[in-house]
């Protein structure tokens, strides 16, 4: 199966794996500790500090590596939450139908009438800024999109013969959701997973950049852009490095997701 991976997907897979590797083994591959001041402020790149130092004189490369860990972990957990929540609710709405579906769908419509970033800012103005809060807020707000998709997919599956057969056999609704609908809805959901993950990374980075996400001294890419942004005016490009890392991560996950999407639609005879 690895014979026909297109070049773009291969690049995406390699880049994504590199970031994941950085995130998992951060303490072992980072040359310096995450928050230790080891040099002058905004030192240029040298043999001692490969990417230079940041606004407080911490090694930028080490912070990038630890930042990968924070950014990827939070984004992954938020995506996992949004999928669990969104898919469960979406399937429930499709299987139960009637007023349950109506109430849930109108509620989600209402939530989606407010731009995600704005609602997140409103909620974060009263909640304590901890990593748990961030994951919860991001996961819950993003689950609206997953809800829409999984409900649409499940409504289609719900009328198929094998679901009808299961009903006649006397299976409960829980069985139908998890044993009949879930396995058949998996492939469109997996294709969406990559896109939701990118959204989570961009969303988290935006929040951290605005100073409302991950709090210092913890390193995360969006926050590092914020820390180093004042250097830009003096021609110090330190802030561009974490920003570029976010872009590269998003592009490479996109490339992989695109490939998976094409593959799954091929399998189904080209249905988009």
């Amino acid at each position, binding site marked *: 199966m690895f014979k026909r991976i297109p070049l773009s997907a291969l690049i995406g897979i390699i880049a994504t794996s590199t970031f994941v590797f950085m995130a998992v083994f951060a303490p072992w591959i980072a040359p310096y500790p995450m928050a230790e001041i080891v040099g002058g402020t905004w030192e240029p790149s040298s043999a001692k500090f490969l990417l230079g130092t940041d606004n407080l004189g911490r090694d930028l490369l080490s912070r990038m590596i630890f930042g990968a860990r924070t950014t990827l972990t939070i984004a992954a957990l938020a995506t996992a939450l949004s999928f669990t929540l969104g898919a469960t609710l979406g399937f429930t709405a499709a299987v139960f139908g009637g007023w349950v579906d109506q109430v849930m769908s109108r509620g989600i419509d209402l939530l989606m009438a407010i*731009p995600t970033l704005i609602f997140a800012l409103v909620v974060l*103005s009263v909640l304590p800024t901890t990593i748990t809060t961030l994951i919860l807020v991001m996961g819950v707000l993003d689950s609206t999109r997953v809800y829409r998709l999984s409900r649409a997919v499940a409504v289609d599956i719900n009328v198929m013969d094998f679901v009808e057969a299961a009903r006649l056999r006397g299976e409960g609704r829980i069985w139908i959701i998890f044993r009949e609908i879930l396995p058949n809805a998996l492939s469109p959901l997996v294709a969406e997973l990559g896109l939701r993950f990118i959204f989570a990374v961009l969303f988290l980075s935006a929040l951290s950049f605005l*100073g409302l996400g991950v709090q210092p001294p913890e390193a995360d890419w969006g926050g590092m852009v914020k820390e180093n942004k004042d250097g830009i005016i003096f021609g110090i490009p330190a802030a561009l490095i974490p920003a570029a890392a976010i872009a590269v991560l998003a592009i490479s996950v996109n490339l992989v997701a695109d490939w998976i999407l094409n593959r799954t639609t091929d399998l189904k005879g080209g249905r988009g």
Partner: protein
Amino acid sequence: MGSGLWTLIIQRLLMGLGLLLAVSVLIFAGTQILPGDVAASILGQSATPEALANLRSDLGLDQPAWKRYFSWLGGLLQGDLGTALSNGKDISASLGKRLGNTLFLAFWAALMSVPLAILLGLLAVRYRGRWPDKLISGITLTSISLPEFFIGYLLIYFIAVKTQWLPSVSTVYEGMAFADRLKAIALPAITLTMVVLAHMMRMTRAAILNVMQSAYVETAELKGLSAFEVIRKHAFPNVIAPIVNVVMLNLAFLVVGVVVVEVIFVYPGMGQYLVDHVAKRDVPVVQACGLVFAGVYILLNMVADIVALLSNPRLRHPK
């Protein structure tokens, strides 16, 4: 234009109003979800009991939530948004000025991005499957993945710092000459354009392609109409609705994108105002800003809906 159309349009307007009302409840509720006490979370651990009690009565926390909601809503309807906790200033006055600035920026960004997106979309359709199409969709895929601040700081780094063509910080003040003002918002407007351009272009391309592949366009071609006539008489009327829809959806997107872009360029608009006061936990300001942003968003979506109704008679008779 029968009376049926007017009924539908009025229906949409009422739906929009209802949605706005529901959203105001949601935004209000969003600031009440803390299990503890907003006052305690604003003042932090070291607050004295007196300060807490003071803030509670300032916020009206000694009253039930529904009462506070209705007094907030009543104030809103009269244009009174209350006073900011952090500096005691009148919110309506500061908000009005900043909303003007934000709309000014968004207007110029829209003026650049909309024609450009439609033009590029048309180009992509015209040269479909050939290199211009591939190049355009490649750039689109990339720029969707770029965070706003990457584009913004890249522009600042190369256009403002290295070459000094444009200012890096967008300072605007009252009584500023129009030309200076335009120069000040040039970089943020370009950033915003690049943020929404990709989405808008991709959706325009899909919309045009959808129409161009339809049976009636093929018939028109087969009966010998010139390419121009096919587009003028058959394709264009059908393509207005989806394009207007795309544009409105992306303008809504642009209004939100403005938050991050304003912070990048330190532009004195609504977004900057909102973010500053979220950090200060100034709940009344956050509620007001949140509602204005959501209101603009809902308004643009509603306009998209109504324009679609006007330009496509088929939507007026739901099955």
